[in-house]
């Protein structure tokens, strides 16, 4: 149900990893400023969606289309998708010893500014911004000097992802189970960070297994992903329903009840 105002339009997407089909006909339409939650049982294809949208090697699109701001996303290299405004906050961010967090952040911001034809930011100005971002996500400034995610706890890694989002200012953020492994305090910090970034021209896909995160990040729409398809969509109240009843009732529903996002 896409139209010209959509930020992201996914049509009948089929995708597989190592010849195993995971996404089996997924449709989703997201307008600027909207927050969509994608919930679903383990193995439904929630993380795969993020990998496919970001263009990870070994994840192949078999059919369907994806446009971001009207551009064919699937034709782009991973880095060009990021430069076009796509951001994926990973469930398990990679540790890169030897590459400092600051160097990594600066290289990311530089690459994106350059792609947009903007002037390069000076190291001093960037350091100021990075320090402010650290503060906002409650990470000690010393983490800028450490290797990317090196020796960070689970919660610190998630906050580091959030910090990257603050600095990169993407149009579409995909948060892949950002709540997993977080205690309630860390969860609140992450949610506050996300909420501070909500704006009329920035959209979010919040992928989560549990309803808990959605107490803090209020979604406009909730979709249930099961066996590679969206099997039900609704407003925030759907998440509460799922919390109470689990996923099994949805997986058995007849095909005609499927809704598009």
């Amino acid at each position, binding site marked *: 149900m896409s139209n010209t105002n959509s930020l992201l339009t996914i049509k009948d997407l089929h995708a597989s990893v190592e010849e195993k089909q995971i996404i089996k006909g997924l449709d989703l339409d997201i307008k600027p400023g909207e927050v969509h939650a994608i919930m679903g049982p383990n193995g439904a294809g929630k993380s795969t969606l993020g990998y496919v949208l970001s263009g990870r090697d070994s994840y192949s699109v078999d059919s369907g289309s994806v446009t971001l701001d009207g551009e064919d996303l699937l034709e782009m290299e991973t*880095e060009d998708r990021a430069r076009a405004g796509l951001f994926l906050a990973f469930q398990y961010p990679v540790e890169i010893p030897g*590459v400092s967090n600051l160097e990594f952040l600066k290289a990311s911001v530089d*690459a994106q500014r350059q792609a947009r034809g903007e002037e390069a930011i000076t190291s001093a100005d960037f350091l100021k911004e990075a320090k402010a971002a650290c503060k906002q996500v409650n990470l000690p400034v010393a983490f800028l000097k450490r*290797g990317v995610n090196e020796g960070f706890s689970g919660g610190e890694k998630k906050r580091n992802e959030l910090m*990257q989002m603050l600095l990169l200012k993407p149009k579409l953020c995909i948060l892949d189970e950002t709540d997993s492994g977080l205690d309630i305090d860390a969860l609140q910090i992450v949610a506050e960070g996300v909420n501070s970034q909500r704006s009329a021209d920035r959209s979010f896909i919040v992928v989560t297994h549990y309803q808990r995160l959605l107490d803090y990040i209020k979604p406009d729409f909730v979709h249930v992903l099961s066996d590679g398809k969206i099997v039900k969509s609704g407003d925030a109240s759907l998440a509460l329903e799922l919390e109470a009843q689990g996923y099994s009732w949805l997986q058995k529903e007849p095909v005609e009840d499927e809704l598009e996002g």
Partner: protein
Amino acid sequence: MSEWLESAITRAQGINDWLTPKRAHALDLLANTKWPTRKTEAWRYTPLRPVERTQAKVMSDKFNLLPVAITDLSAIEVVFANGQFDQAQLAQTLPEGLSIALGGDLNSAQQADALNAFSTIKPERHIFGLINDALAQDVVVVSVAEGVEIAQPVRISTLLSQGSESHTRVQVVLGAGSKLTVIEDVQAQGDSLNTAFVEYDIAAKAHLEHYRFALQTGSNVAIGGSHFNLHDHAKMHSTIIGFGSELSRLDTDIIHAGEFADAKLNAMYLLDGKELFDLHATVEHAMPNGKTEENVRCIVADRARAIFNGRIHIHRDAQKTLAELNNRNLLLSDKAEINTKPELEIYADDVKCAHGATVAQIDKQALYYLQTRGVSRSKAQVMLNFGFINELIDLMPNAALAEWVRPIIRERFAQMEVK
């Protein structure tokens, strides 16, 4: 035997000085040593053609060769220019407790000590070590008195002009409880050949911080060794960085001659073009309760070749030894070559000893992660390669040296092509 070695032996026979007894011993051993070929295990991957074909000649002129400056670091300079110790470049006044002198200038008692110590730490199996014994113009003896900590690093520079041949030799003696930093550095212009050997005797509770750089070697044939003898509770921390050359061969020997000694060795080499770098690192745990940690990392691009042989020998009496050897290699092209061989020989039963060697391409997950943030694939590759080496640079105890070498390495990566 090669013509080159024959001529070297003839030249050595003509030298008559205080080192003559040691030179004669080395010549005896050389007479019974076969010139290495591909069948010689220690030289299997390192053909000696560049030595056999060298046109390099010993020069008597020092050509005013000066060591490159290291930003924010003021060192006590020990300079060998075309093989000759350049007295003029040594500071007139040295810190209290430190002495640096040419063996030939020592008084007879000191000279007798130096002669006794000569070639006792460097094992006799190193053929070029024997050649250095026979041909070194003299020995520079660096010693630190008991209990003295020298803050200023001593830098030993081996400088060679185009077409020059040099053989330099240093003895470093750290008195009990003393502390010293030594930087060995080779800066060679083209078509030169050098052998540079340093022996370190680190007395009880003394602490040596050591660096060996070979960053300006180009078409040089650079052969050398750093050999360390550790007494009770002695400590050493060594960092080796090499860019390779037509032929670069380095032998290190760490000997735990006392108990509770602690040795760390971090070596990294970055090779491009048709360069070759061969590191043979040997650790002898002869006494109990010793500790060794070795990290060797290597990045090989284009058609370059890296050789690493890491031997750890734990003798029967060396109980409670902790030894770890970690060798990781990255190949940037399918024509690049890495030959790595960890060798553990353990004769004691109560020890902890681990080793591992990996040869890999770049980490695809990390590459993807960087790309998802907008960094191009090629830039991400350079960042990851640099990170691989930078991990060890971060461990350099001397911050000024680390800051100096980091951009040099970055520059090197910018030149190394990923194919």
